[in-house]
């Protein structure tokens, strides 16, 4: 019971805040928006206690640019928002990605489009994984499905950001962010033996050549192209190194559900009921939305040539495209079913159960 007792109780949004502090985050900039506001509220108190920089920005646009500034200054920095606010950050994110500045960005996704509602949603998947901003770039996207993972992944996000020099997203949602669960608040254990020194940081050029953080590449004419190629070499490396996932009951399953975040928990309820009834239903849960963990999914499909897939999203269908692309030439479309709910609403264990029944019956 010793470890049990070390558990603490927090909302997902608060756990993310505490994780940032434990990971050495020095600056946090954000603008209030439901359902993520507990993060700035929590950090306004905690960062003052720890003598760190908390600043409520005048807007999401200002917040993401403050993140750009602090990252450029060489420290760990985070921001958080929810869907409409994330849309406003897209220009800044594109700059930060191009300038290769490490930072952590939390999106507690809510119902959209527009003002939408304040319930949980997964309809910002395209925005986070395909770059809602302009130009060719990618961000690592981690998708927690519990308060424990919200905490753990936030800590890891800082390491990933520094290691690969890029923005890392935590893609949470209105349920995971609002959930109160006990979790183990482990000490910060670095993911990597060594992180690259921030030699590029802006600290005044005493004793060295000036550092310049820029994203304009006018000369030579293919200068920007070269930067893009550099970025994509990095992205290829990340795709090789960081495909995170969780398997649940996939061996010999008749149906494998593919779901992430909140939807994966709803699905697991339904699966348990099913499996209690004797069917064989498994689940493949991407923990990184980019890079998408296709290697493992392909393995599952190849090991189990008759398996059917059921993709469940709290959106009208976005991740399904990554499933199609991953399984192309391996599984025909007819064996990939989809169950999605758009607009800040969620499936239930019962509705998932029924959908599984349908797929099994096909």
């Amino acid at each position, binding site marked *: 019971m010793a470890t049990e007792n070390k558990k603490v109780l927090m909302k997902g949004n608060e756990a993310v805040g505490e994780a940032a502090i434990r990971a050495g985050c020095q600056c946090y900039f954000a603008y209030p928006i439901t359902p993520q506001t507990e993060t700035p509220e929590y950090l306004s108190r905690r960062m003052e206690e720890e003598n760190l920089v908390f600043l409520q920005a005048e807007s999401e646009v200002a917040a993401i640019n403050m993140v750009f500034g602090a990252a450029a200054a060489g420290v760990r920095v985070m921001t958080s928002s929810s869907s409409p606010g994330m849309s406003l950050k897209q220009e800044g994110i594109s700059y930060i990605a191009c300038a290769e500045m490490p930072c952590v960005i939390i999106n507690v996704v809510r119902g959209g489009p527009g003002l939408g509602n304040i319930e949980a949603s997964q309809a910002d998947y395209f925005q986070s994984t395909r770059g809602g901003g302009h130009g060719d770039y990618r961000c690592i996207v981690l998708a927690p499905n519990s308060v424990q993972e919200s905490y753990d992944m936030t800590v890891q996000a800082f390491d990933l950001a520094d290691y690969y020099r890029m923005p890392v997203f935590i893609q949470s949602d209105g*349920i995971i962010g609002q959930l*109160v669960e006990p979790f183990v608040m482990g000490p910060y254990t670095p993911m990597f033996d060594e992180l690259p020194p921030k030699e590029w940081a802006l600290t005044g050029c005493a004793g060295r050549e000036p550092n310049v953080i820029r994203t304009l590449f006018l000369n030579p004419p293919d200068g920007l192209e070269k930067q893009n190629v550099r970025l994509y070499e990095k992205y290829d490396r990340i795709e090789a190194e960081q495909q995170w996932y969780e398997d649940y009951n996939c061996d010999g399953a008749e149906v494998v559900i593919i779901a992430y975040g909140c939807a994966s928990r709803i699905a697991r309820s339904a699966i348990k009921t099913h499996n209690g009834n004797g069917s064989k239903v498994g689940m493949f849960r991407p923990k990184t939305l980019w890079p998408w963990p296709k290697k493992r999914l392909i393995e599952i499909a190849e090991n189990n040539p008759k398996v059917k897939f059921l993709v469940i999203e709290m959106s009208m269908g976005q991740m399904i495209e990554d499933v199609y692309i991953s399984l192309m030439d391996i599984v025909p479309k007819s064996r990939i079913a989809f169950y999605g709910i758009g607009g800040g609403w969620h499936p239930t264990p019962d509705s998932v159960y029924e959908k599984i029944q349908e797929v099994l019956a096909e």
Partner: protein
Amino acid sequence: MAGKETKILIAGFGGQGIILAGNVLAYACIDAGKNVCAMASYGAEVRGGTAKAIISISDEQIDSPIIETVNLAMIMNAPSFVRYSSSIEKDSPVIVNSSMIDQGQTERSDLDILGVDATNLAIKIGNIKVANIIMLGVMIKKTGILDPDSITGGLKRAFSGSKKGLYYINESAFRSGYDLY
């Protein structure tokens, strides 16, 4: 009750300590080695109205955080009673604050309702704010979902740091509720 999951609704006015009562339960679960998962809501983005917390307690891993119906409830004021009674499963125990609720206000006759004059008892104890914990005491006694010592542990955790001074009055509120029936 599907599986071993206890799904508890706590509802009332903002200010009646709804979220706090939920947190005490959740903390108690940690001590008791049970799994727990809570979800609080304060109504929509527009303020006012009712506060509500749903706490799931289980010996197993808690999967879906989506709770549509509950099998135990603790209701602190009349509007919440009207609003939420339809989401309580048949035959479930429901502890209501009879200081503020007229039990005739629900059409459900299939609930196991227990009225507690909690607000008035709380005033007697000396702090109207502990009505929630008195009701918690009644609920624990009536259902046995957790042993009272874990609740005491939960109270210790909930009233720590700057709120430490409030521990004793809440502890005795809990006892008085627990001992009521």
